[in-house]
């Protein structure tokens, strides 16, 4: 698949001293959903704003569809849309005027049929004549998405698309994002809701202190850095682990009645059948067995922790 976005050695300073982005290199494939994860202040929004031309960057190059975003800003911006993190809208304007205004800004001639279709898709048609100030937070978020899509972009940036929206609306938003992607829009989203990245993305990058510390496919990342824990609840508590079980690095939990063993998903060294046979051979009676797999959130926290420790050491 062709790269729709290519970033090379991107650096951005604020006030000439604070390095918000440091040597960012990133390629985004056409048609994918890419999640940019990172704690607050990591540089996610600065990266998106640099790509979209909202802030100037200091060094490096950014290309969209093989075109430099500075030299060919008209062509690159025409195919780019952005949904900002904050609910930045003209509150005294109607939904209809707001969306048509953005389409005009992006150099497209009025197309009321398309805007109507878009507003219907986003369940905003009934509210088209309402002023923004009369809408709920969730509706405002939808208006921002409608504005970003008003000029039919190929590359869409969603900066914290579900920040401060309720669970039900978040699920609705995810459906909207999936539908857009199905229609051929490449999506880059920043989030610190890990389950959002887990639900939506094909690939994930983790950014911390202005640096990308990891980029990988979501499933590979979970497999590579994820862990699984098997918990075996015994009928009778035991004093200590010995016999066949000593080779498994078990720990005893909950009044010595639960054997817990954590192993890396990539290692493939734990044979569960053999493990359970060994438990049986040692004469223990099993009450229950459960498995827990680390989520992207746990991987993310682990990565950021390791990265912060490394930064402190350096």
């Amino acid at each position, binding site marked *: 698949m062709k790269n729709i976005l290519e970033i090379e050695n991107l650096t951005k300073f604020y006030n000439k001293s604070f390095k918000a982005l440091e040597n960012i290199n990133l390629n985004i494939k056409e048609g994918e959903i890419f999640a940019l994860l990172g704690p607050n202040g990591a540089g996610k929004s600065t990266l998106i704003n640099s790509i*979209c*031309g*909202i802030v100037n960057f200091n060094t490096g190059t950014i290309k969209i569809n093989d075109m430099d975003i500075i030299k060919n800003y008209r062509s690159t911006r025409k195919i780019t849309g952005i949904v900002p993190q904050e609910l*930045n809208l003209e509150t005294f304007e109607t939904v209809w005027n707001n969306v048509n205004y*953005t389409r005009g800004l*992006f150099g*497209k001639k009025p197309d009321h049929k398309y805007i109507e279709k878009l507003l219907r898709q986003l369940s905003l048609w009934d509210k088209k004549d309402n002023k923004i100030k009369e809408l709920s937070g969730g509706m405002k978020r939808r208006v921002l998405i409608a504005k970003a899509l008003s000029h039919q972009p190929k590359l869409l940036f969603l900066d914290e698309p579900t920040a401060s929206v309720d669970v039900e609306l978040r699920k609705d938003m995810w459906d909207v994002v999936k539908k857009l992607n199905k229609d051929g829009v490449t999506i880059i989203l920043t989030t610190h809701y890990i389950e959002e990245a887990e639900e939506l993305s094909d690939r994930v990058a983790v950014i911390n202190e202005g640096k990308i510390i990891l980029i990988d496919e979501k499933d590979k990342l979970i497999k590579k850095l994820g862990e699984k824990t098997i918990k075996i609840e015994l009928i009778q508590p035991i004093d200590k682990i010995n016999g066949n079980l000593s080779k498994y690095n078990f720990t005893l939990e909950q009044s010595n009645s639960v054997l817990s063993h954590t192993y890396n998903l990539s290692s493939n060294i734990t044979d569960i059948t053999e493990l359970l046979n060994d438990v049986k051979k040692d004469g223990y009676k099993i009450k229950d067995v459960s498995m827990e797999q680390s989520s992207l959130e746990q991987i993310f926290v682990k990565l950021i922790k390791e990265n912060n420790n490394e930064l402190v050491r350096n």
Partner: protein
Amino acid sequence: MNWYGIKAIYVHEMERFKRTLFQSLASPIITTSLYFVVFGSAIGSRITEIDGINYGSYIVPGMIMLTILTQSISNASFAFYFPRFTNTIYEILAAPLSSFEIVLGFVGAAASKSLIIGCVIILTANFFVDVRIDHPFLMMFFLILTSITFALFGFIIGMYAEGFEGLQIIPILVITPLVFLGGSFYSINMLPEFWQKISLLNPVLYLISGFRYSFYEVSDVSLFTSTLTIFTILISCIIFITYTFSKGYKIKD
């Protein structure tokens, strides 16, 4: 050129003007009427003619200039500061628009509003005094050029202002005193020689003088100097805006 983009900004700004049409027009009309009542009738009736022109009529160009300058500045500064304040500026910056096109949209709308208000003031003045326009094309030339120039100046204020209070500082502390001291209500020939020389340092004097010439063929300074002054301010504003946009200062930093 992104004509649709320019049109979007222009129409968006004019819609705001339409929404607040009553306030936009009522305020300058009432203020101007009060000036005519106080200076034209009450005080003006005791002042003899200036350069052969009835005092009430003499102050009309100055009154229009005062309104045009303040309205152009406030319209343009508010228009550009408001999206900065609400953070809706992001979509203007992310759109395929050059800095020239952005300025054209905002300044075009601000200047248009000022022109409409200026024309309404001329009509209002007719209710109070006799208004004669000897050179209508020259009058329109000055009116349009001044509206554009001071809308550009207002745009600069909108780019640099840190708050709504900041939008008011320059118009109140700089522009209004310059207009009042720039011969709006008098001819500088009525001042002592020292103050005449000081008045010549005031750029607004040249605008009012040129504008008054288009009405009554009387002026404090030559028409050429007036035209040169307005173009100098215009070009300075363009250079300043171009520089600020190229650096991204206050907008893209």
